[in-house]
């Protein structure tokens, strides 16, 4: 394992890979600092550019971009009180008051170092779990992989929205869309309506673009956010202030370490995502402080805690994404779709056949987070100017590159029609609080689930559900539903 890890590190340290990583990090920082854009649109934006690339460089490029989005997402939160991305909202609570007190530089410095250290600890967490995951994955048979797909959808459905029912429907919708194309066992056409381009099924990238990009673009264009609008160029600060904030992270090293680990563990649980990680760690910072009354008025710990968690969760989230095909967050769900396009099929084979790719991605997480801190420190004096650019200017480019990504996925212009059709449904999902991540799990895991189901049925018949690991997975599925119902019942408003 150590040999593979070192070989992967050496593979990353080539001029080509480092250049890709630097470009990816710069784009990721840009997408983070512009309010409303975020990592999801970033991946969709970059898909055309990785088309035709080898799997590893493409994956490194996309992950480098995605892993640093939250590092710069905190900048508009601190300077203007507008979160660059959703999970950066927790940083506003203390970051913005710090800026108003004239300590914007200190808050920025703390953010940068906390994010960098969090990202590195997240990657370390992932690498420490690697030796244990391989044997677990290898113990799984087709029966367990089928049930794992069901578990993944149930898990995400229960955690990613306010209604389990809606989440399950969306997950099943994704599985249903995955049935389009030629049946793998009989070769018969299913739901192709005589269209040749549907014979290979609906391209996952096209589906992901329709489900995620279209609603986000409409929302972005409708809001046309600009962090600095109406607030001038933002507060002033010096590099000395920024360095003081960097040192604050080491002054609170215990909190930094604890929230990094909490964030990574939360990332490991599919469906929880960055919002939960950052708010939970913010809460932990308040609870563990001897002076909790300072929070909300400009406590530096209130900036450090959510920022470490934001970045460390990416390391944890990569594990279920890569080994089980169950994305740890909605961003990871889109990243997973892009990985499939690059030829990296998430699943157990990664543990055995492509361990070098997993190690390369772990190193990417580490190096990208360090690069992001270095770059942001270098450009710290000008960050407020970048954050005040109107993000609406990017809308037409995002639309064009999204459509280009869907075209390149299968080389068929008819995919544009699918993007619009799925986009309309997804817009309604977004508007009426239907979770969208379960759809991606459905469409990506659909072929694996179908193949596993047929194999399990042929080997054991219906008794495949009685295998020990299968029973354990069924118990987890039932427990997930039970816990969801119990939570809902507990939070129901009392009738007066």
């Amino acid at each position: 394992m150590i040999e593979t890890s070192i070989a992967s590190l050496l593979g990353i340290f080539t001029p080509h890979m480092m250049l890709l990583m630097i470009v990816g990090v710069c784009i990721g920082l840009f997408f983070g600092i512009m309010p409303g854009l975020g990592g999801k649109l970033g991946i969709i934006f970059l898909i055309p550019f990785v088309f035709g690339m080898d799997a590893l460089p493409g994956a490194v490029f996309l992950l480098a971009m995605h892993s640093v989005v939250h590092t710069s997402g905190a900048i508009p939160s601190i300077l203007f009180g507008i979160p660059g991305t959703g999970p950066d909202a927790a940083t506003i609570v203390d970051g913005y008051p710090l800026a108003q007190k004239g300590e914007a530089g200190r808050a920025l410095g703390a953010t940068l170092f906390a994010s960098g250290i969090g990202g590195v600890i997240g990657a370390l967490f992932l690498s420490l779990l690697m030796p244990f995951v391989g044997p677990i994955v290898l113990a799984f048979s087709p029966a367990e992989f089928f049930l794992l797909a069901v578990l993944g959808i149930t898990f995400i459905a229960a955690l990613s929205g306010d209604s389990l029912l809606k989440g399950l429907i969306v997950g099943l919708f994704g599985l249903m869309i995955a049935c389009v194309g030629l049946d793998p066992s009989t070769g018969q056409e299913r739901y192709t309506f005589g269209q040749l381009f549907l014979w290979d099924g609906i391209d996952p990238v096209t589906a992901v673009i329709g489900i995620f990009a279209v609603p986000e673009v409409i929302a972005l264009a409708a809001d046309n956010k600009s962090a600095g609008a109406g607030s001038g160029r933002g507060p002033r600060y010096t590099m000395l202030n920024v360095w003081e904030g960097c040192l604050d992270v080491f002054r609170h090293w215990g909190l930094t370490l604890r929230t990094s680990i909490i964030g990574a563990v939360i990332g490991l649980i599919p469906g929880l995502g960055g919002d939960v990680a950052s708010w939970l760690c913010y809460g932990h910072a308040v609870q563990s402080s001897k002076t909790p009354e300072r929070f909300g008025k400009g406590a530096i710990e209130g900036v450090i805690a959510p920022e470490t968690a934001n970045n460390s969760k990416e390391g944890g989230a990569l594990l279920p994404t890569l080994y089980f095909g169950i994305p740890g967050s909605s961003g990871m769900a889109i990243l997973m779709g892009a990985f499939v396009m690059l030829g990296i099929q998430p699943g157990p084979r990664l543990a055995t056949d492509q361990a070098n790719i997993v190690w390369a991605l772990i190193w990417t997480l580490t190096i990208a987070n360090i690069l992001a801190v270095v770059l942001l420190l270098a450009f710290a004096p000008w960050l407020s100017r970048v954050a005040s650019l109107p993000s609406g200017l990017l809308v037409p480019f995002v639309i064009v590159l999204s459509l280009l990504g869907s075209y390149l996925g299968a080389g068929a212009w008819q995919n544009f029609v699918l993007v619009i059709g799925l986009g309309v449904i997804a817009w309604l999902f977004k508007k009426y609080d239907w979770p969208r991540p379960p759809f991606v799990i459905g469409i990506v895991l659909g072929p694996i689930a179908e193949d596993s189901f047929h194999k399990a049925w042929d080997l054991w018949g219906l008794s495949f559900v009685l295998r020990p690991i299968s029973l354990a997975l069924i118990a987890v599925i039932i427990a997930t539903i039970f816990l969801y119902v119990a939570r809902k019942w507990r939070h129901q408003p009392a009738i007066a």
Partner: protein
Amino acid sequence: MSGRILVSGIMTVVFAVFVGLAFTIHHEAAVMPLLVGVPGLVLSLVQLVIEMRKVAVTADEPIFSPRERSIAIWLLGFVLAIIAFGFDVGATVLVAAYLWLAVGARPLGAAIGGGLCLATMYVLDHLLNIPLFQGLIFHHLF
């Protein structure tokens, strides 16, 4: 009609169509569609009933705001322009038009935006050798 009922209704119809069509294909090929479609149909019907009961006590709201409708029309315009004229011409013209008309950029700014789009297409097509869609009209003409 309430948007909430509309979404549940769409999902019910989608699953009903998929389940109905599953009966027209070979039984072995229909296993997975039925395994997924039947629970999907049942759950969608349950959600539809829940939404219909909710609507009786909540106020209706428009599905698209005027601004969102305008963006959706622009999006459709992008798709139609690219299908007709391809990425090089259709996308470039629409990017410039969007920046000018929807964002309110000056004509020079819009032209620069269109130029950036064209340059991106050039890089993808000629430097990265990524095959771009030429558009149905241009495909038939040339």
